[in-house]
């Protein structure tokens, strides 16, 4: 008997990386790797569940930047080229390992996997990966939601309410453009909540969002159901808290499943392991080594001496871990049900890219969890927040504090000595955009001016992505993150200057529209604070 509800949420997001001005661009690989390792496997999981008639519900948040890149014709072509190169590399590996049977089998497995990915992507999906997500949303296994336009870190953009509104509403508009309906839920980037954002979410027609556990537990009055029921923010918009137990089992460096000895080791890639001569065609222009996705070793243990990866054992372990996960939920609901006088809602949100990219066996685990939860006698039933709210629409009102799901639980990761310099610049550009919208929004303007104003807003939004301060803090690809912030702000400055001086250059504007080809329906006039109290429908 189902004594509790399990709401698994996968947040899929990558920053906008789109460089038609270069023939190839290393950071575009982030998308390509995620397609091969995360998005295609996730879609295949959904297809198998549909084929087998498994009754389950899953929530997937697709960020507007990711949706845009998945639908971008240039990136689609480049992904095919990327896969073809990976096929060549796998073929080269098969030849290199022909006298090492165990490695050879693994190389052969990669070649077959790349071939399947290429066939599925190019032939089966016709390069359109949003279509299968839409299909599974329509046929009932998926609830799709979205997030802010470029994943802006909203508490630190809140110096200008217009900036936050623009992030929220542009994101929702982008989702609507691709899926034809408005999402009920909204993923706050980095689960970063601040007091008052619920009003802007309500204005945008949003019914619920997620926060980290402490964000909900620190609410006043203390929510008596802990994180196991939504709270009403006071305006009918519901907040849901992450269950720490589910997070710990998957994310914890010490106790988490992905660190199991049987799983594939992410950090051992032939791009770094093989002699430079073997990798020559697959290096960056400056000779730097890069990850290739071909990895032969398993985690093994806390040692640098890694044992060979054994896919069958790893998959069996993933199924074992799925069973363990559901068993832990059984213990949880058995304890919580009497205390709550009803079924707990256990919210388990994760980065989608964990499943398949960082944790190679993650999709197998996820599929098994969904299958086990659907079995007769399962202690939990999977559902989405919309399902839950349809059954339980009323919840206690409480007011939360600012919180995030990042390190230390607040904004420290996105504002510190490594990245504090960006905020004065972002805020200044936001104020200038607001002034442009106010000064020019009501005036008759030419088509060229309209394009320039809309492009200025695109540049601003792209500069606001939370990924760049995150990368500056984490220390990976710092130069690129810095360049993206500076380039986007420089583009904004150029357009602002050209608009103000009425010296628009069509060629320059066209170049910027080609390079930052996102949010085609954007309207600069909507970059303004909320003064009307209107709610969009």
């Amino acid at each position: 008997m189902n004594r509790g509800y399990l709401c698994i949420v996968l947040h899929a997001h990558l920053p906008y990386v789109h460089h038609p001005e270069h023939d190839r661009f290393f950071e575009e690989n982030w998308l390509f790797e995620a397609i091969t390792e995360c998005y295609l496997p996730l879609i295949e999981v959904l297809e198998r569940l549909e084929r087998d008639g498994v009754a389950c519900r899953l929530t997937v948040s697709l960020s507007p930047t990711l949706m845009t890149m998945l639908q971008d014709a240039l990136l689609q072509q480049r992904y095919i080229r990327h896969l073809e190169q990976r096929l060549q590399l796998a073929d080269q590996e098969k030849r290199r390992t022909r006298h090492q049977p165990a490695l050879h089998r693994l190389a052969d497995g990669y070649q077959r996997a790349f071939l399947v990915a290429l066939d599925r992507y190019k032939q089966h999906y016709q390069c359109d990966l949003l279509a299968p997500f839409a299909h599974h949303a329509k046929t009932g296994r998926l609830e799709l939601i979205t997030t802010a336009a470029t994943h802006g870190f909203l508490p630190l953009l809140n110096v200008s309410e217009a900036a936050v509104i623009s992030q929220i509403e542009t994101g929702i508009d982008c989702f609507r453009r691709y899926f034809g309906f408005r999402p009920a839920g909204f993923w706050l980037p980095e689960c970063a909540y601040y007091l008052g954002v619920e009003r802007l979410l309500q204005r945008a027609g949003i019914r619920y969002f997620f926060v980290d556990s402490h964000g909900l537990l620190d609410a006043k009055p203390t929510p008596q159901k802990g994180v196991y029921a939504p709270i009403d923010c006071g305006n009918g918009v519901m907040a849901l808290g992450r269950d720490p137990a589910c997070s710990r089992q998957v994310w914890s460096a010490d106790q988490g499943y992905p660190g199991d000895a049987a799983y594939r080791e992410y950090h051992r890639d032939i791009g770094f392991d093989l002699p430079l001569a073997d990798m020559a065609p697959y290096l960056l222009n400056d000779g730097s080594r890069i990850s290739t996705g071909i990895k032969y070793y398993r985690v093994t243990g806390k040692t640098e001496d890694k044992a060979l990866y054994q896919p069958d054992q790893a998959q069996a372990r993933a199924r074992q871990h799925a069973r363990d996960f559901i068993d832990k939920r059984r213990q949880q609901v058995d304890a919580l049900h009497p205390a709550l006088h009803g079924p707990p809602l256990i919210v388990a949100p994760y980065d989608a890219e964990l499943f398949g990219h960082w944790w190679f066996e993650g999709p197998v685990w996820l599929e098994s969890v969904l299958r086990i939860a659907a079995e007769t006698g399962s202690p939990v039933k999977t559902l989405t927040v919309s399902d839950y709210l349809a059954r339980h629409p009323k919840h206690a009102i409480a007011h939360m504090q600012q919180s995030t799901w990042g390190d230390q639980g607040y904004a420290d990761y996105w504002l510190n000595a490594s990245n504090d310099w960006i905020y004065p610049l972002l805020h200044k550009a936001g104020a200038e955009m607001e002034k442009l919208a106010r000064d020019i929004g009501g005036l008759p303007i030419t088509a060229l001016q309209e394009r320039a104003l809309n492009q200025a807003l695109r540049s601003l939004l792209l500069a606001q992505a939370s990924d760049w301060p995150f990368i500056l803090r984490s220390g990976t690809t710092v130069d690129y993150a810095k360049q993206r912030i500076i380039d986007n702000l420089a583009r904004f400055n150029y357009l602002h200057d050209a608009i103000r001086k009425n010296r628009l250059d069509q060629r320059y504007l066209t170049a910027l529209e080609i390079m930052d080809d996102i949010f085609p329906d954007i309207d600069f006039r909507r970059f303004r604070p909320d003064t009307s109290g209107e709610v969009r429908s």
Partner: protein
Amino acid sequence: MPAARPLLSPADLHMIACLIHRDFSPAFASVHAANAGMALTRQELQDVAEHIRREFTPSRSSRPAQLVLLPVSPTRLHVYWHITAADVGADMRWILRLYQQATSPTPAPAIALPAAADEWLDLIVEKPLGQTDILLSGPAATGMSYRATLAPIAGHSHSNSPLHSKPAHAIVTSGDNPTENLPPALAAFLLPALPSTSSFAQSSCGQGYVAPS
């Protein structure tokens, strides 16, 4: 016999590659332009990007006068300021005064500042452009907020504040045990402290062993 291949120097090869790249690279058009006739090559896109980067890189000193307070965590505020040349005048030292004050206990997105401040903290500021963290010693209470002013030191008095920040909400935490008011059955699943999670490009999921140095 095949014809002998003409000998080309590296410079010739480079020049030919550049010419082909310039004249035969695929061109891109904007979907926003009514006149789709304007298509730009990769090289042209790069030139535009490079020119804008060179000429319009954001400058920290071109900002208007401002004072902004950002709540980072329950123990940290971040403040940045810019005093324009006109404001600086002969005053080289300024006082940044941070007020902690009570606001309405119920959330109000637009906070009305009370007439009088309850407590404050002073910092000496010697640069017209800067930013710093302010560590908060004691826990803030629900319903508290912060605001800041920046004024020249005039005879050790804090007068004529030309810059005011907007108020920032204090971030309040329930401390070490946020579950103390909950039934024990719930608390058991909410403790111990949560692992930190992250977004794109980082995992703390236990892979990637690095030997201790």
